[in-house]
């Protein structure tokens, strides 16, 4: 006998809501009309791997396809948010004229610092304040428009992950943009 909705605990309801949303997104992808000639929409298994596999790369064709297809992007975001080690939603705090230089969520802090080697280089630092069984292996940023960006994380040094990026790299621009969402996968 199936349990009734009213008897479920709130966490269980939340879990089932998310699962339902994912199923709907998957169905939408499978049932869609044939794409125009020459356009290759991402398959659901590709989206699933890119969102859920900690070591999967986000290839350029897939990132471009996600940028061009709202439903695929919605499914990717839902899968990513659901499976992320940490999910940073759109930032509510007011940003400086140059944008955000730090984000905090669920024990993780991401912050940007300039490098002495030149104004065009910036450190992306991610600190994990908690002891966790699962460690993130990649950072994925979802800007409000354009393709998502993924960068593998190196080994942490005492709980801090260090990346060095160009100031104008898509990853740094996405982290600075308060309207972007960020996941540690």
């Amino acid at each position, binding site marked *: 006998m199936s349990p009734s909705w009213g008897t479920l605990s709130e966490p269980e309801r939340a879990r089932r809501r998310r699962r339902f949303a994912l199923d709907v997104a998957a169905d939408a992808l499978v049932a869609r009309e044939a794409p125009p000639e020459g356009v290759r929409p991402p398959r659901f298994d590709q989206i699933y*791997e890119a969102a859920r*596999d900690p*070591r*999967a*790369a986000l*290839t*350029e064709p897939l990132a471009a396809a996600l940028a061009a297809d709202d439903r695929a992007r919605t499914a990717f975001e839902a899968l990513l948010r659901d499976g992320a080690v940490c999910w940073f939603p759109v930032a509510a705090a007011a940003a400086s004229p140059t944008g955000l230089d730090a984000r905090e969520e669920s024990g993780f802090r991401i912050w940007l*610092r*300039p*490098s*002495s*080697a*030149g104004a065009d*280089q*910036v*450190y992306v*630092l991610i*600190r994990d304040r908690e002891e966790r069984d699962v460690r993130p292996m990649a950072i994925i940023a979802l800007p409000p428009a354009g393709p998502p960006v993924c960068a*593998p994380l*190196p*080994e942490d*040094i*005492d709980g*801090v992950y*260090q*990346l*060095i*990026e*160009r100031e104008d790299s898509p990853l740094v621009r996405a982290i600075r943009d308060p309207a972007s969402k960020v996941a540690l996968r």
Partner: protein
Amino acid sequence: MRARVYIATTEGPVLVQRLAPEAGLAEAELSAVCLDGTPTRLPITGAYTYFVRDHVRALSGGAAYRMDLDRRIDGGSSWMLGAWTAHLLLSEGRLAVGDETADTAVYATGEVAVAADAERRDEIRPVDYVADKIARLAESAAEEAAGGRRVLLLVPQENAAEAETALRDLPVPERPTLRLAADTDDVRRALWQPGDAESTQPRDAESTQPGDAALASPADAAATPSRPGRGKRRRGGRVAALLALGVLLGAGAAGYAVWHNAEGEWERLRREGRYLELARSLDGFFVPMAAQRFRDRWRGQGDAAGFAVTVAARRPADGGSCSGMRFRRVSLVASPVTPSGPVFRLDRPRSLCGFAVGAASHEAAGGHAWVSLNLVPAHGAPAVLVPARKVLSGVPAESPVELSQDLPLYLQDHWAWTVTGVWAPRPSQDVADLLEAGDAEALAALKDLGLTVVRARIELAR
């Protein structure tokens, strides 16, 4: 004194291009090692961070630095002595970076470690391949000396014998002054020892000052001043001519004997597979033409007819995807890949589960074969997923020499490997060491010594 610092490696000396406190990393107490001023972060960054915390903070008070190198260093710990020397010079305002002028060049290899004895906090520990590192820095040291700079080689005390032997193999103009260090105090003494500034040549061979192990060079003996003449008795012209002829004949006979003995020695080294020693002996022989003649005799004379590298792609027998293979209960089959020139392209990545690389001869041949597979670093991540280097050796006549490489299910674009196959008449530790070190230049030189060396490239194609 103002000095630039090189880290001696088996791939050649690596210059410390820039070293500076990094305020942006101070909050996290992290440091970074980068390539050539770019954002490329080298894999030794983690070890360097701990090195700064353990050994540099006490020196300068800083806990976050960025060091830029002109070439990659991907692992090991022998970079530490060079890094410590650079930090010492930086703390004294004597480190030359970029275009800054320098009167000294320091080459260093060694590990810096916290000593078990609390009285000696930082000790210098021995490292491997010192002779190879010295051989690879000779050209750079000669350029520094030609620029009028004092050239020092700093190695751990326990590597003294190996370093002295290796230095003797270098021509005198390329020979740096050897300095030994048992702890970090010795490094200070070695850098600021008085009396070095006048010459880049080795000093007194008897010198045993702390930190000093100067070598006497053959040139020192040759430069010994001759005693004044004592007045010669006049001799008849005929006697003098006969004497001169006798000297010439004697010298010729002696020279022939030395050459003959040297050729015998070279043959022995070649038979025993001691190719590095053979190459050094040939390079240092006093009659270059004789050494060249020996090389010419063996160049391209590898006995392995048709020795070649082969690649086979491993895919599910039903041609389906590799990731779904576990649900279909099919086995893998290997199919040979036809190269395009030296490049093997592996297409259809979804059905590609791995590949095998072999080194074999089409014709029956004895001897020993090696094959090495080296991942070409592309976007940083692949080395985490597959080994950076694999080496296998064997006897082709007994069983195929074949390396296997499984591929992760989720492939990345542009992955590539270089493949090197080597055939030699007998097993040789030198060949194995060169393949492990990935020393392409030295491997190519083996062709001059009668070995067969073939190269290829494997690329994953979308």
